[in-house]
């Protein structure tokens, strides 16, 4: 039943945007064909997966936070923090050469995760200590992280050989994620898959996962059960921010190859959408991110082939989100009705 409702929600998003297409003299069938072309073409599918990796990592991290009812919107900022940390490591290692090349990436992954975690713990501590609204603190920290990252790349970390253009020196080969042969997909996808399994295990099999859910269901029940709210929330945000930081690293080491101003295309916010659309289920998130990546690629196909505005993809995304959310109501409503 709930599957039928999900399907109906998605369909209604199609119908509403179909109406918009018709109004703007666009053949909706052709438009949808183009929007989903990436799932029929292996080159485009590979691109969809490339987009999906950072979205996946952010969404998986957020899942944990949302399960604890900590409504973080800080993925975007944490992506920037991850980008800052990996760039720092690259620049630092280029000067000091402490790490042998093959060891660099494994150690970098750990460092990026840890330092991004620190950034994520700040709003968690503020929430635990002062009950500040986490939506707003995480949102504000997004702007701060982005500005710091841009400051570094325009100022101290600017490539001295880059004709003054704002970007860091290029990352050396040992600081790049190797591509999976024959595709454009970089190997950070395995971090994403590993993270999905890890989040699943944490939530389903560990005591900590149980505590997360108790905290998420009811603050007072958690207190009654003797669960430390601040411990749970801090740990949850540490993991969440760490994964988002790895998303930033995946963008720089996997795709861009150097630090650039405003380097995240809003994946931190897309991750929020994906996390909710996939009902906070780690495995569905892996598929959902690829679906969304395909949608992003499809949006470009749509522009390229039909001359449609980039705004229409946003409208479709938003409609999809709203109808899916509305579907949640009908799932619950059904339960009440049976009783």
């Amino acid at each position, binding site marked *: 039943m709930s599957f039928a409702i999900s399907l109906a929600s998605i369909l209604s998003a199609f119908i509403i945007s179909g109406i*918009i297409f018709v109004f*703007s*003299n666009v053949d909706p069938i052709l438009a949808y064909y183009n929007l989903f072309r990436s799932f029929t*073409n292996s080159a485009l599918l590979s691109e969809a997966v490339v987009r999906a990796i950072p979205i996946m990592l952010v969404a998986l991290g957020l899942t944990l936070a949302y399960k604890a009812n900590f409504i973080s919107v800080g993925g975007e900022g944490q992506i920037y923090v991850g980008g800052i940390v990996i760039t720092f490591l690259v620049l630092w290692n280029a000067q000091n050469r402490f790490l042998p090349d093959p060891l660099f990436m494994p150690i970098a992954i750990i460092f990026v995760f840890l330092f991004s975690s620190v950034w994520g713990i700040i709003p968690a501590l503020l929430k635990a200590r002062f009950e500040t609204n986490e939506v707003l603190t995480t949102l504000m920290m997004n702007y701060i992280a982005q500005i710091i990252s841009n400051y570094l790349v325009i100022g101290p970390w600017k490539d001295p050989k880059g004709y*003054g253009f704002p970007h860091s020196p290029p990352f050396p080969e040992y600081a790049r994620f190797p591509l999976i042969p024959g595709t*454009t997909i970089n190997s950070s996808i395995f971090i994403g898959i590993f993270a999905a399994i890890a989040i699943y295990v944490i939530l389903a099999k560990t005591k900590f996962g149980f505590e997360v859910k108790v905290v998420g269901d009811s603050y007072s029940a958690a207190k009654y059960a003797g669960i430390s709210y601040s411990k749970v929330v801090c740990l949850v945000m540490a993991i969440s921010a760490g994964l988002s930081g790895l998303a930033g690293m995946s963008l720089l080491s996997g795709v861009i190859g150097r630090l*650039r101003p405003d380097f995240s295309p809003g994946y931190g916010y897309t991750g929020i959408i994906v996390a909710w659309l996939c009902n906070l289920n780690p495995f569905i998130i892996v598929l959902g991110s690829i679906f969304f990546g395909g949608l992003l690629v499809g949006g470009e196909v749509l522009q*390229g082939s039909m*001359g449609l505005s980039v*705004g229409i993809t946003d409208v479709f995304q938003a409609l999809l989100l709203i109808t899916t959310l509305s579907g949640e109501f009908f799932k619950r409503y059904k339960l009440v009705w049976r009783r």
Partner: protein
Amino acid sequence: MSVEKSRRSFLRDAAFALGGVAVGAGLGYVAAGGGRAPVTQTVTKTTTQAAERKVVAGFVYVGPVSDYGWTHAHDAGRAYAKKVCPWLETKIVESVEEAKVQGAIETLIGQGANIIFTTSFGFMEGTAEAAQKHPDLYFAHCSGYKSGAAGNAPQNLSAYFAEFYQLYYLNGLAAGAVTETGVLGYVGAIPIPEVIRHINAFVLGAKESAKARGKNIKVYVQWLNAWFDPEGANKAATSLVENNNADVLAFTEDTPTVLQVAESYQKKGKRVWSFSHYSDMSKEGPNAHLTGQIVNWGPIYVDFVTQVYARSWRSVDIWARVGDYMAYKWANLQNPKVEYDGAVYLAPLNPVIPENVRALIALRWQQMKEMLFEPFTGPIKDMDGNVRLKDGERATHDILWNMDWHVEGVQTPLPK
């Protein structure tokens, strides 16, 4: 009972909401001009001649086509090329973030593009990688320094750019002729060599025409650290006028905000002037618009797609200046005129610019067509008094591309 009620209230609310959405959609439809909005590009081709050839050009834009400067200008160039070349088909992808450039390129190739233009500095690495991967296709990247011609990329990659510094010099001539306070303001995007040499050229021009009036020129700079920041541009422009007493405002920012600020001063009876940037913005400031720098990417795009069509590709590193892509390049020094031709040219000149200065602008324009005049010709000192160019020495490509100093007359030191 409550289920029944909540269901009824739900239905009522749903009807209400749907009605509202319908009204809203209707309004939106009317607002969009009866849905005449973007047009579908259908390829109507009667393939009677089997061997009819076609070039498909893909464009990767960094902003939306509906921005106010950079991407808008590129898309106008694309439309120009499409008009000139009947065998050309174009496909665009807009608002592409840097992290997505390879994807956007692949998307366009997947749709049959055989030449790809990427129009942001941040797309350089991605374009070079794609060129490596697709040796049978052609690529051209705007505003970077990698190309087969330069020897740091495969031969199927060209680089192109339209350079404004000569036009900024001409803007400076106009500014120096109309300023009453002798103070000029510059709202700069990001302190990189490109913007710095634009500021410097502007200052050099202003000093030349102000000297004839016996005036000294002071220039104050405000940095935004962003290419798009209308709010910051508004504040910077207003502060320059009020606090620093500037009465001519030049800018590098992707909206017409600075010109609009100048126009609002003109409305209040205060004479403040500004310029066009990228495209003719004289409508934005009917009174305040002095002149300005305009780019026409059209001829450049025609050149590239024709190379592909004629199978005469050669990797180039083009830096289009005054005189390039012109129908007639000979300088006419006896009867000089400013022409609206080539890849870069001036916006219409405001009649407040005195006759003799307009003649000077036209003379310099003609001289620059054949490199008979170079704004950066020594003696030029920087703002700390160090000699940067000796008497008669002309700035080279490397000096222009690495410029990290301000000429004498600028009051604001560079950040850091």
